[in-house]
């Protein structure tokens, strides 16, 4: 086993004392960094080392889980699953050094212990069942040089080819996700019309490096620059990307035993496969019109039977845009089939941290809580593919003489269907088929009105219809839930510093959990302080002992007494934040609903909990 350097913490001897002192030092180091950062941030100064300069960023997210007898009595909160204890802290310290064209940096991720409800938590937990270790860290680093027409980077690499359909390495801390590739990357610009890029390395899976190699190359060619067109853009681009699985056929019994959690007990694949992906893109822009397209295909892997070279997957992505003055329109279409590509298929079922490509959901991601209560989660995981698209229209109505008064209108529509697929994912041509059907449809309208310098209002209406059966591979009949969501949002500025913002939301539905109502009040004292209280209440009894098992509802049986009733729960929050330059500290307390936390088109399931959150970010 050839583990790369970044996994040093995991490969250290498992001696409790050793780890404790290490962790103490780490915490001390964080403290020193924090203190140093505070003093420097205060002066708004920077650190200089020789001719170069150093920049530092620190982020710390902490949760203290408290007892909530109501949530616990009906099994919504299950404290016994929090095996790392009633406290969690995901922390990131990043230090960069920059000297002209040269830069280098390190990032330490500390999970002290990890926050509950992230895929990373379950992954670390599954790998540490036999130990009482609670704190984990991960070190990543890079060094790079940017020449005039070329650049080289060695270490952890974040990059993507085109839209990321065959390759994207990135970090998303809201999901505790990071699949940076540890390796090397180089690019070269030919004139102003072509860029050639190559990358190779081993991607990160949560707090480890994978054993599998990935490599690829990307060429983008600007036809318009080549021919000297100045009033339009035409470019063609192409990429190749591959994953080479480590050959584990030579492993002996001990190797298997050491890696049982990776391979599983029943999935001993020969695993020396190379999976190949290619992509082609065409982009065009002329006089307010834009057209972007990408077609990508996976040549030889089937997600549902990893290791068996079968017809792979494909995805077609089309994007149209038009704008004229303050009107703009955008429409996207996508059809995809079996395109999810894992970093290591032998570790399937461990969440999104195992993906090397990016095929995100295309529906609108709402910022209001009730509109985001039951987001679209994608059909491809359960049925292998989906087809659909979305349309956005924006218009801003403004009087050029009164800049502080305007209307902004926005309309959005999206729809996604599953593809025809065989029962049970069977590859047998004679297997019974399930027809593709609509699994998501939504229509959203919002209007924002700035009345004068003091008053601003926003109104949103959202219609959403989702098929709950999309999660079940072989469901031949849909079960639709429909919601109508209304939101009103008013900001009133008393003066240049004091303002108040109130939000009122209502979700009307005859299905699932029935009606919800939510409200919040936020008082701001700019630029430093903000305070808020909010509540979200499931106000309508839904479901009973008979149908609750299949289709949601708020009917629960007490786990001790067995007595069932409708629990119309309040999900309340109270919080405050303080900001000074680049320092931001936020403290909140409240009850959080079990649901999906989405970031950048990827969602994670967060179980319900009640507790305190303390978040801090700082950079200089």
């Amino acid at each position, binding site marked *: 086993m050839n583990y790369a350097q970044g996994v040093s913490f995991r490969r250290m001897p498992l001696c409790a004392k050793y780890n404790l002192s290490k962790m103490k030092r780490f915490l001390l180091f964080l403290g020193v960094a924090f203190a140093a950062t505070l003093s420097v941030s205060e002066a708004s100064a920077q650190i200089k080392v020789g001719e170069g300069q150093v920049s530092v960023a620190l*982020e710390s997210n902490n949760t203290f889980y408290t007892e909530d007898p109501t949530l616990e009595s009906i099994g919504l909160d299950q404290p016994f699953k929090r095996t790392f204890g009633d406290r969690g802290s995901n922390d990131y310290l990043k230090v960069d050094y920059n000297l002209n*064209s040269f830069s280098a940096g390190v990032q330490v991720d500390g999970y002290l212990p990890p926050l509950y409800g992230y895929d990373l938590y379950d992954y670390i937990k599954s790998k540490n069942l036999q130990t009482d270790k609670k704190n984990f860290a991960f070190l990543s680093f890079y060094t790079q040089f940017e020449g005039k027409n070329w650049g080289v980077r060695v270490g952890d690499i974040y990059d993507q080819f085109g839209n990321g359909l065959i390759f994207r390495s990135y970090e998303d801390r809201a999901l505790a996700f990071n699949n940076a590739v540890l390796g090397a990357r180089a690019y070269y610009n030919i004139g102003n019309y072509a860029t050639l890029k190559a990358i190779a390395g081993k991607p990160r899976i949560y707090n480890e490096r994978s054993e599998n190699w990935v490599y690829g190359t990307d060429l983008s060619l600007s036809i318009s620059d080549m021919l000297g067109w100045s009033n339009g853009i035409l470019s063609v681009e192409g990429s190749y990307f591959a994953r080479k699985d480590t050959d584990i056929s030579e492993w002996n019994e001990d190797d298997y035993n050491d890696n049982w959690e990776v391979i599983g007990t029943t999935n001993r694949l020969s695993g020396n496969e190379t999976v190949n992906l290619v992509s082609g893109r065409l982009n065009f822009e002329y006089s307010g019109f*834009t057209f972007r397209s990408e077609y990508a295909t996976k040549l030889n892997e089937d997600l549902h039977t990893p290791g068996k070279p079968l017809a792979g997957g494909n995805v077609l992505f089309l994007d149209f*845009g038009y704008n004229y003055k303050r009107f703009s329109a955008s429409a996207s279409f996508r059809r995809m089939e079996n395109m999810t590509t894992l970093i290591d298929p032998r570790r399937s079922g461990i969440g999104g941290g195992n993906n090397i490509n990016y095929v*995100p959901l295309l529906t609108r991601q709402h910022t209001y809580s009730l509109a985001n209560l039951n987001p679209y989660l994608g059909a491809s995981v359960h049925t292998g593919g989906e087809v659909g698209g979305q349309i956005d*229209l924006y218009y801003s109505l403004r009087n050029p003489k009164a800049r502080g008064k305007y209307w902004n209108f926005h309309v959005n529509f999206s729809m996604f269907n599953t593809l025809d697929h065989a029962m049970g994912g069977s590859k047998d041509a004679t297997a019974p088929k399930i027809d593709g059907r609509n699994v998501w449809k939504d229509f959203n309208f919002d209007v924002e009105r700035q009345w004068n310098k003091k008053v601003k209002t926003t109104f949103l209406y959202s219609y959403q219809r989702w098929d709950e059966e999309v999660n079940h591979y072989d469901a031949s009949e849909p079960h639709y839930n429909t919601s109508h969501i209304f939101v009103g949002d008013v900001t009133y500025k008393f003066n240049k510093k004091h303002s108040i913002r109130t939000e009122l939301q209502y979700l009307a539905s005859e299905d699932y959990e029935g009606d919800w109502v939510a409200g919040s009040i936020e008082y701001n004292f700019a630029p430093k302080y903000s305070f808020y209280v909010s509540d979200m209440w499931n106000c309508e009894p839904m479901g009973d002992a008979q149908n609750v098992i299949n289709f949601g509802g708020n009917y629960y049986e007490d786990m001790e007494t067995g007595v069932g009733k409708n629990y119309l729960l309040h999900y309340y929050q109270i919080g405050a934040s303080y900001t000074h330059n*680049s320092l931001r500290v936020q403290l909140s307390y409240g009850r959080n609903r079990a649901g999906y936390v989405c970031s950048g088109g990827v969602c994670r399931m967060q179980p319900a909990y009640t507790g305190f959150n303390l978040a801090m970010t700082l*950079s200089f």
Partner: protein
Amino acid sequence: MKKLMFLMVALFVGVSASAQTLPDVKVENQEAKVISTRDLVDGTPMIISFWSTTCKPCIMELNAINDNLYDWLEEVDFKVVAVSVDDARTLSRARAMTQGQGWDDYVCVYDKNQDFKRAMNVSLTPHTFIVDGKGNIVHSHSGYTPGSEQELFEKIKELK
């Protein structure tokens, strides 16, 4: 880890007060052409604001700056660079939104794999920077509360 700590401590030694310069990173402009962030430095001070289509306070902040823009420009010359950190999922919506929100006086750039965001050490959006005409970062502010745009205006006036 010990070595790393030594390195870090070594880096903290020699702290001196001088402004950080804008890093050199590739982003896309409104026409989807790749440009260098150093090209943004042209002698005019700027407000650089990181935003995304799913970040409500970011949009509020950019709208608030836009409301005041002409009043402020009467007193001091500067430009506003709106950096969208939307990825392939919402990139086309971000492009449409800059037009549909009336941000036509802004320089809009797109940082689809967050290289600029990472180089500027932005953890949360909105995050706003003030950069002088030579490319020195002179102020940064994380988060938005209605009215905090006034602080940006005060800071940019200090550059005069």
